[in-house]
């Protein structure tokens, strides 16, 4: 970030790699955790940490698509809830149901994302309100579906992605399936955002929507696609979270703000135009590491909310300050 802030970088400074401060932050936090709890340095320690962070990391990387395109998606937490509740109601403990439930849930997610996108693009409802409305609606649907109290259970085949570990691997000794999911979906989302024409159009739409339209970008389609990607990753995150944590009616609540916080820590520009998938995943790691530290310090759960609120405000204020210092 510091190299970016120079108005006219000289040839020398341009060659310096610009290290996003989030990576430094993650390393520092992890070192702090290891100092306080040496067991974290063992494979079971850090692998379980990664397993815990997977749902948030995938979710944040997906939510970043909407943020880069210039919007917010607050419905992702409720999509996670709906996925977990819906899957448990449909599965009724039948192990073979997983093979059609997950595709079905992805289908539902795609439809939800499509509705979000259509409402925002064509009805011009601010995305914050549209997706908040979707959040209320989906939470209501999840309640209706479960009748207020979830009855079903998730079969082990479903919980495979969130819970299962491959053991007896040399060096790292165990490898959770969730971590494999994190790497696979992380790479796919990175590729989509940073290596395709779609990703460049997302950036352009978020940077200057009117200019994008006049430059021939299919603005509506791009924005709608961003909401669909975000909703699909929310379903994936829901599958992984449900696998790890089981069924409850408020399982996804709060994740929407954590995802935005992770993106902001990773240096994403709110209201669009700039954002990086790897940095956002690192932002999720940083957030989870902070939560872990708070636990190690013996602070109660609600302190997380306070810290998260402070980080959210602090990160945006910091970014504003940096931009102002860079001038223009």
């Amino acid at each position: 970030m510091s190299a970016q802030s120079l108005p006219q970088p000289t040839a020398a400074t341009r060659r310096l790699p610009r290290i996003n401060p989030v990576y430094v932050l993650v390393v520092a936090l992890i070192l702090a955790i290891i100092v306080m709890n040496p067991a974290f340095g063992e494979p079971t320690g850090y692998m379980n940490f990664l397993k815990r962070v997977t749902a948030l990391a995938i979710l944040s990387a997906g939510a970043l698509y909407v943020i880069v395109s210039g919007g917010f998606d607050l419905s992702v937490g409720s999509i996670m809830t709906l996925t977990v509740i819906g899957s448990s109601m449909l599965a009724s403990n039948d192990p073979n149901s997983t093979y059609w439930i997950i595709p079905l849930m992805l289908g539902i997610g795609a439809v939800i994302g499509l509705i979000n996108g259509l409402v925002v693009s064509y009805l011009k409802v601010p995305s914050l309100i549209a997706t908040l409305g979707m959040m209320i609606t989906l939470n209501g649907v999840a309640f209706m579906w479960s009748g207020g109290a979830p009855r079903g259970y998730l079969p082990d085949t479903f919980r495979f992605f969130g819970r299962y570990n491959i053991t007896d691997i040399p060096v790292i000794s165990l490898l959770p399936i969730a971590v494999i999911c994190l790497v696979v979906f992380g790479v796919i989302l990175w590729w989509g955002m940073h290596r395709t024409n779609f990703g460049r159009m997302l950036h352009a739409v978020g940077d200057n929507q009117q200019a994008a339209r006049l430059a021939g970008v299919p603005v509506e389609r791009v924005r709608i696609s961003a909401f669909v990607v975000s909703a699909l990753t929310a379903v994936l995150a829901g599958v992984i979270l449900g696998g790890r944590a089981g069924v409850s009616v408020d399982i996804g609540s709060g994740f929407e703000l954590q995802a935005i916080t992770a993106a902001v820590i990773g240096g994403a520009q709110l209201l669009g135009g700039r954002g990086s998938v790897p940095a956002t995943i690192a932002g999720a790691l940083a957030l989870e590491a902070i939560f872990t530290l708070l636990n190690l310090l013996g602070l109660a759960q609600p302190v997380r909310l306070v810290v998260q609120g402070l980080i959210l405000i602090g990160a945006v204020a910091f970014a504003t300050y940096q931009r102002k210092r860079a001038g223009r």
Partner: protein
Amino acid sequence: MTDTPLSTPRRFRFERHASTILLVSAVALYIALIIIMGQTRFLTLENLVAILGRSITLGITAIGQTFAILVASIDLSVASLISASAVVTSVVMNGDPAMMLPAVLAVLALGAVVGLANGLVITKLEVNPLIATLGMSLIIQGVLSYYYNNFAGNVPVEFQVFAYGTVGIVPFSLMFMFVLAGCAWFVLRFSRFGSDVYSVGGNKDAARLAGIKTDRVVIGAHVICSLCAAIAGIYLASRLRSGAPWIGAEGVYDLESIAVVVIGGTVLAGGRGGIWGTIAGVIIFSLIDSIFNVAGVDAFVKQVLRGIIIVAAVAFYAARSKRPVA
């Protein structure tokens, strides 16, 4: 790019009358439904008062939210603040009538501090108001949940008069809401501050060039918004006889207050709208609620329909604007 037709004919501006149109249609729908269902017992003055009485928390909150939105800001921390205010009210009073005044003062101070903090973060740190108030919401909720996880304290019977006392058939609280709305209207219409609120919301740069201290206006609007949310929390504590840390979030007062303001014809971009529109929006919402009740809609289905109605209502206005949205 300033090419515009030389003369724009004066035309009927739909958005300036939309809230009236919506209000009339909601009333018509309600009456039609009652007649169709043959439940004319709902067509009484008492029932009208009851309908309005159900929306007092929302109404008081929305009056404050109107100020925030008029200066082109927004406040998403009202729901948490309502919870916090209700809990502080009932905990400080804790059944003791002598503590009523200290409790109210403490809650108003809390509201003022939250509003000031929101305003300062938005103006001085230049944090996007959505994020600033979302962050504030998390902080309030976290602190509150740290200390309380259930109904805490209780409100003395003397104070429950605020929610349950009536003059004839009209509850004190309903009168209070209308008096508050009247004050807000007066401030917006006749005071220098009110005029500045519209100017800053309409065009911040022009306002600054004209010598208006724009930061102070934004901070002032946020203080008013938070004070109203605090009062709404006091009322809720009086009605529920105690406060709990989830009652604000449960009522979705953040989103509903914004929706009501927008339905009332105040534009999210700021600078246009007013209090009576907001009150019309509140009445529309209570009517919709009553329609659900008369029609016997299930509670969860009601939640789903509310979400859809809020988005539809905002879309009703937003789809006409040419400006790109976030």
